[in-house]
């Protein structure tokens, strides 16, 4: 590329040189150049001469070609490749970053789907566990209730039995005391002291009567 530009610059120099030479042979251009050449050094033309806006000659052409060619060559070697490669590298980095982001996004979406499915499964499992727990709790509750009721029934039955025994014992004591009381009363009435065997005989007889009368 640089070589091509150099070739073109050389061609331009030749062409421009020719043009400038032709221009200098033109009487007006010669005047202009002369005016420029006779100008004061430094800051302006000589007093009394009109400044020529078209002042210039082959020297300007050559210097322009040389300086511009140097600018093109040096920048073409030391500036623009860095610029182009920097832009290309940045473009590549941005493209890779976008591609990386796209892949990461796809991965993240896949992970999200996976986690969503897992969460859904966990929710279903949790519901099932809760339901099972409820069922187990209900069963335990029923079992405890049943056992409690059974225990209560047994307690009641046992209490009834004890009550019955106590009642029988009380009734027996009552019979005994009643018989003794009756004997005392009867002894007092008949003023006669009966012997113990008599008493027992009377009591047995009375009990016999009472039992028979209850039946």
């Amino acid at each position, binding site marked *: 590329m640089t070589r091509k530009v150099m070739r073109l610059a050389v061609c331009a120099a030749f062409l421009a040189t020719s043009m400038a030479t032709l221009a200098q042979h033109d009487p007006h251009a010669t005047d202009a150049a002369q005016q420029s050449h006779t100008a004061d050094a*430094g*800051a302006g033309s000589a007093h009394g001469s009109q400044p020529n806006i078209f002042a210039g000659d*082959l020297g*300007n052409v050559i210097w322009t070609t040389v300086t*511009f060619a140097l600018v093109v060559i040096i920048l073409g070697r030391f500036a*623009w490749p860095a610029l182009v490669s920097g832009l290309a590298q940045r473009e590549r980095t941005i493209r890779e970053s976008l591609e990386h982001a796209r892949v990461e996004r796809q991965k993240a979406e896949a992970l999200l789907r996976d986690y969503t499915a897992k969460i859904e499964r966990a929710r279903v499992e949790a519901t099932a566990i809760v339901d099972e727990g409820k069922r187990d709790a209900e069963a335990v509750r029923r079992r405890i209730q049943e056992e409690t009721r059974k225990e209560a029934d047994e307690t009641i039955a046992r209490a009834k039995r004890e009550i019955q025994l106590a009642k029988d014992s009380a009734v027996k004591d009552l019979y005994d005391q009643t018989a003794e009381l009756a004997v005392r009363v009867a002894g007092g009435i008949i003023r006669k002291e009966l012997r113990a065997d008599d008493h027992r005989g009377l009591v047995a007889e009375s009990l016999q009567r009472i039992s028979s009368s209850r039946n």
Partner: protein
Amino acid sequence: MLSVLLGEHSPLEHVVQHTAPEWVMKIGQTSITLMSNHIFMQIVSALLIVLIVPWALRRRHDGDETSRLVPRGLGNAIEAVCEFLRKNIFEPNLGKYTPIFAPYLWSLFFFILVQNALGMIPLSEWFKAAPNHVVGGTATGNVFVTATLAVLTLILMVGSGLRYHGMAYVQHFFMGPPYIAWFIAILEVAGLIFKTLALCVRLFANMLAGHIIIAVLMSFIPAVAATMPMWGVAGITAAVVIGAVAFNLLEIIIVVPLHAFIFTTLTAVFIGLAVNIHHDDEHEEHEHAPAHAGGHH
């Protein structure tokens, strides 16, 4: 400018090329100026460009790998300008030839831009005390400078057309029915010359005119000083200073970069016309395909 203000010189004085007789070499009837203020400013511009642009483009942000991809400061601005030119001007006009011509066009842009910008600095006033100095002036206000750059564009146009299309480039001048083909070919060749001339004159005339206007504005002050009372001179001076500052701002902000941009853009367009001569045929073949390079043809 100060000399104009003091009424010493013509308003044209500060815009034309200045040299000294000892800096002019004669070869037969041909004169070659070895050094002048325009040549000196051109060399300074070239030096500034070749020193600053590569340095600026290599400065990168510190930090992680991504930050180091981004230039900083002036390099960032240069890169933004280059990228803008490439995406918006070069690629639409040059198409697949963009990587080939972009370095030349970027160099052209900065070469003109820096010369235009240096012309806005009143260096000749600063070095006025130095004898025989050649500092100051706008090199692009010299018609030989702009003509050389325009001729380079012409050579690139024709050279690239011939390089990439051979005789097809010559044949594409002969358009239309046979009886008018030669006439059109002459017009096309004349068009090439006129394009070159337009490039040359546009840059030269604009840079010259801007400076002349400011000088003319300043020359009003000494012109009225001798004939008007003090308050009148003060009024004219205030108006002239405000106008000159405003026009200077216009030159610095708009004109200086704009004409570098225009010259570069037109060069890209003209080269694009030369290297994309088959665009119309391709367009007809791919009628529904999106248009690409050479859209101006």
